[in-house]
Every structure is written in C-alpha cells, then in structure tokens.
C-alpha cells in the first residue's frame, strides 16, 4: 500500500517535470524560432538601439546551432540568468524578485477567501437545490463568471475609491503604499493592507463564483449516492449527513478543479494589478507589453507557468492524502 502510494507520488512528480520541460520548450520556441529571425522580429518597428540588438544576439546565442542555443537557454534559466530588461535596463530576475510579494499576497489571500466562501456557497446551494438561496447564488455566480475580472475591478474602483455622486471614495485609487510611509513600520503595513483591500476583494468576488459553481456541481453528483441513503437510514441528522458524508466526498473532485483554476487566478492578477496599479508581477507583465520588453515578458511567463505547475503538483499530492483510493 505504502509502495503504491510512492508510485502515485513519483508519477505526479514526473508529470509535473514533464509539464515544466514542455513549458520551457514552448518558451524557447515562442521567442526564438516562431517569428523567423528573432532579433529582427524583436526589433521590428520598435525603439531598440543597435547596442540592445547586439546584446540580444549575444544573450540568445544566435551564432550557435539550435540545439546548442537550447542548451544555453536551459543553463541560463536554471542559473536564474533571465537576461536584461529592455525597459528597466536591469536583470529580469531581480525585477521579478522585487515584484513577487505583492502578487503572492494578492493571489494567496484572494484565492483563500474565494475558496472558503465559494465552497460554502456551493455546498449550501447544492444541498438545497432549487431553493431561493440556490437560485440567487447560482444566478449571481454565473453573472460574475461572465464578467471580465478587471471590469469588476474597474466598477469597484469607481464606486469605492472614486465615489459615486454624493458618496465619497473611501479606498485609495491605486498603488501599494501612500507616499512617504515607511513600508516596514506598523503604519506602513496597515497602509499596504488598506491599499490591497479592494484588489483582494476583486480577486475574491471574481473567483468565488467559479469555486461555488464547481462545488455545487460536484456535490450534486454525490447527492444520489447509496452511502447517503444508508446514512439517512441510520437516522443521522441532515446536517451530519451533509457534513460528514456528502461534503468530504464532493470535495475530492473540487480540489483538482480548484488547482486547475489557479491558472485563471494568476491570469486575473495580471489585469487586476493593472487596474489598481499594484506593483506586482501582473503589472510588470503589462508594463513589459507596452514596450514590448521580450526578455521581461519571457521571465514573467516562466514564473507564472512554474507557479501554476507547482500548485497543481501540490494539489495532486494533497489529493492522495485526502483520498486513499488514488494510492491503491
């Protein structure tokens, strides 16, 4: 049994490594092979100096053969050598490290809140399918699901930061911290939380819809199962049937779907950070798009993909912990 568990874990780790390798290949080909002469393409219609072109040729190793280029690229990637940003004239790796934490806080807090509230709503509406709560929550979940998350952010920004009519805005309109405040002091931390409140609210609202719809349908799938009938026949109270029998089983497929959805949350961070001018990886990506700053874009793509792949691996391993069936 334990041996089989190890096999499952090894399989999943191998799968993630496969994804990682695939992503590295995609990243390599997208920027080098697809558009023909990369340097010419990168410099097309753009303000790129001869110095930058030379540097690009050197960092891309275009005088080498293709397999050799790929090896150089792998070596550079694994040593954290992600090239120099066109826009900032700084190493891409440093820029990414600087901008990492606002995104982590935003995506982390947002996902946590969205998962908890979303799952709760999903359970409640599935258990009372067809009730008023179910109708209202499913209807609004579908509406929010149909909304671009950044548009929701724009609306919240307009209402709560700018203010509507006589109502003044109460939240800051953007940025991560008020000017002149020390970010490490207590005041600074509170100020940053205040700045992050609306973006986190946007992420939470935008994704709790997804999670509640997922949970609702997976609980509905379980509702007819025989073990629930047995539990009821034993005379258990409805609450206990739900909490101890139905929900734990319905959670299983949700875990995978929530992990897959993380890709969308990360994507949402790109636009939401742009709307609220939060200096994280998302804003860094849109700043890179304006130039366009290809080394930087490639770097952020790498980080986003690696993060999502890692999150998926964690979810798969978690799955093995909570569902003994996959181990055997």
């Amino acid at each position, binding site marked *: 049994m334990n041996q089989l568990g190890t096999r499952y874990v090894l399989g999943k780790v191998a*799968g*993630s490594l*496969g*994804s990682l390798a*695939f*992503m590295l290949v*995609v990243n390599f080909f*997208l*920027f080098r092979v*697809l*558009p023909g002469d990369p340097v010419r*393409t990168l410099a097309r219609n753009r303000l790129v100096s001869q110095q930058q072109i030379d540097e690009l040729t050197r960092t891309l190793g275009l005088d080498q053969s293709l397999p050799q280029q790929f090896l150089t690229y792998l070596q550079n990637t694994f040593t954290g050598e992600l090239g120099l940003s066109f826009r900032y004239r700084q190493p891409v790796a440093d820029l990414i490290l600087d901008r990492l934490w606002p995104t982590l806080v935003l995506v982390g807090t947002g996902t946590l809140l969205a998962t908890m509230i979303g799952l709760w709503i999903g359970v409640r509406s599935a258990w*009372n*399918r*067809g009730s008023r709560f179910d109708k209202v929550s499913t209807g609004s979940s*579908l*509406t929010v*699901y*149909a*909304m*671009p998350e*950044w*548009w929701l952010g*724009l*609306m919240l*920004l*307009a209402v709560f930061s*700018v203010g509507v009519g006589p109502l003044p805005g109460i939240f800051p*309109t953007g940025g991560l911290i008020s000017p002149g405040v020390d970010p490490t002091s207590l005041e600074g931390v509170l100020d940053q939380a205040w700045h992050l409140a609306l973006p986190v609210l946007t992420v939470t609202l935008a994704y709790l819809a997804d999670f509640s719809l997922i949970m609702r*349908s997976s609980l*509905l*799938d379980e*509702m*007819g199962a025989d073990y629930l009938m047995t539990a009821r026949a034993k005379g258990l*109270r*409805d*609450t206990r049937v739900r909490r101890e029998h139905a929900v734990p089983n319905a959670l299983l497929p949700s875990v995978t779907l929530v992990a*897959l959805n993380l*890709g*969308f949350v*990360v*994507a949402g961070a*790109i*636009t939401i950070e*742009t709307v609220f001018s939060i200096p994280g990886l998302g804003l860094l*990506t*849109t700043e890179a*798009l*304006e130039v*366009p700053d*290809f080394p930087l*874009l*490639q770097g*952020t*793509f790498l980080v*986003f*993909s690696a993060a*999502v*792949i890692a999150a*998926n691996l964690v979810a798969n391993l978690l799955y093995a912990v909570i569902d003994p069936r996959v181990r055997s």
Partner: protein
Amino acid sequence: MSAGEAVPRLTARQVTRRRRRESARRTWNEFRSHRSGVVGLGILVVFVLVALGAPLLADATGLKVTAATGGVLEAPSAEYWLGTDDNGRSVLTLLIWGARVSLFVGLLATAISMVIGTLVGVASGHFRGWPSSVLFRLTEWFLVIPFLPLAIVMASVLGASLINIVLVIGVTSWPGTALLIRAQTLSIEERPFLERARALGAGHWHQMSRHVLPNVMPMVFANTTLTVAIAILTETTLSFLGLGDPLRVSWGSMLDDAFGAGAITTGAWWFIIPPGICVILVVLSFTLIGRALEEIFNPRLRRGILDETSKPRRRERS
C-alpha cells in the same frame, strides 16, 4: 400515399436523416423546457442580429476618429444616446460595431479550438498504446500552462491583428475540450456497437467517424458554447491589455480606451458600463445555453435531476 405502395421504401441515407431530424426535434423540445437556456438564446439572437445589421443601425463612418462629430467624453444626450468617447465618437456606434468583432473572434477561435480538441480527444481515446499516451500527456502538459499568460506572450510575439487574436485563442484553449472528449470516447469505446464494428472489420477511420464522433458530438456541441464564452472573455481581456487589432473597435478596446482616458476618475460611466454589460450579456447567454445543453446531453447531470425528486423532503434548519 397511394394504395399501390404499401411500404414506403427508404434508402439508408433517408433513414439516417429522419432519425437525425427526429433527435434534433427531441433535443429542441427538451431545450425549450430549460428556461435559462431559452433566455440565453434570446439574448444571443438579439446580439447576432445587431452584429449582422450593424451597417443598417449605425453608419460606419462614425468609427473614424477623424470624422468624429461629438465633443470629448460628452454625457448621453438625445443625439448621442450613450454619450461620446475620448475622440468624440458615439459610444453606441462603437458598441454596435464592437459586437461584430467580439462574436467573430469568439466563434472562429472556438471553431479552431474545437477542431483541435476533438481530433486530439477522439484520437487519444480511440487508439491504444503510445499514440494515445503521447496525446494524453501533451494535453495534460498544455492544460497546466496558464492560459492567459501564454495567450499574452503569443499575441505580443505574433503582433496585433484580428486573425492573430483568433489563432492565439484557438490554439491555447483546446486542452479542456480534448480531455472531455477523450473521457467520452473512452466510455463509448466500451459499448457493444463498437465491438460489433470491430468484429466486422471496420478500420480506425470508420470506427472514429461513424461510431465515436456522432456519439461525442452532442458533448462537443455543449462544450462549444461554453468555449465561445471563454474565447469572448479572452478577446476582451487581450484587447484591454492593448493586444487587440488597433484598426478595429471591440468592446475590449473600448474599455482599454476608457481606462486610458481616465473615464473612471472623470466619472464617464457611459464609456465603461455599456461595453462591460454587453460582454456580460453575450458571455452569459453562451454560458446559459451551454449549461442547458450539457444538462440535456450529459446523462450524469440528468441523473442528478432524478435524484432531486427522490431525495427526501426532510430538511432541518441548522
């Protein structure tokens, strides 16, 4: 029918066609009982009519920045029902023409995604051995690469044009479909009629095109409508990030303009709310239709309905 021909003779083709017509009619009848699906279809029909009739509803010269007649960010008035944008163009005209781009991109990108997804899904479910596992792994690998960053990177490398946006969305959104179709194919492969076909010596192509595909088609169809919703949302987001076709007005590019022109701080709600509402309505309509179709075609969800009626009506407040 005259008495001479007792039994009407039908060719195999006619029989099939009748059967198909019959099943389409049954599906339609069932669809009509899903109220939300019908509402979705109604909204969609309105938008499709607006998109098709755009030249009749609003003069295309209203899209030209140089021919703009209104003031900058003018509030709604009798002349400009939804006000003007930062270039003095009528927001209503932009909305009407924007419907074309959104629907065009959504439908064409979905078509590409469906073709790739269905081919990969059916092939990886039908074949045994390494071709199947290679395709399956490929799908899995593609699935975990975050969709929007990949689309952003591809769009910026390929350059901004309508057809590139279509390609980018089509090429990045197929893995979900492929997994779904694969699962369906695997369950159909177990059915006796395929065993019979194999026993009679049917080739792979015949099995896939005559037996597997017609049976997964309903799921493909339901999934298509859901994919259109995602494709339209993605187009809007890419345009908002400035990756859309600069020569065409879409709802996403309007919102990009509005955000760039500071419509939020100046309170020009007519430039921000209407495009957003249009996106929501169109995406919602596809989602509602897709969910209704899924419930009709997916036996597992139908079982859910039956269970609902058999579930004891005992409910406690907790």
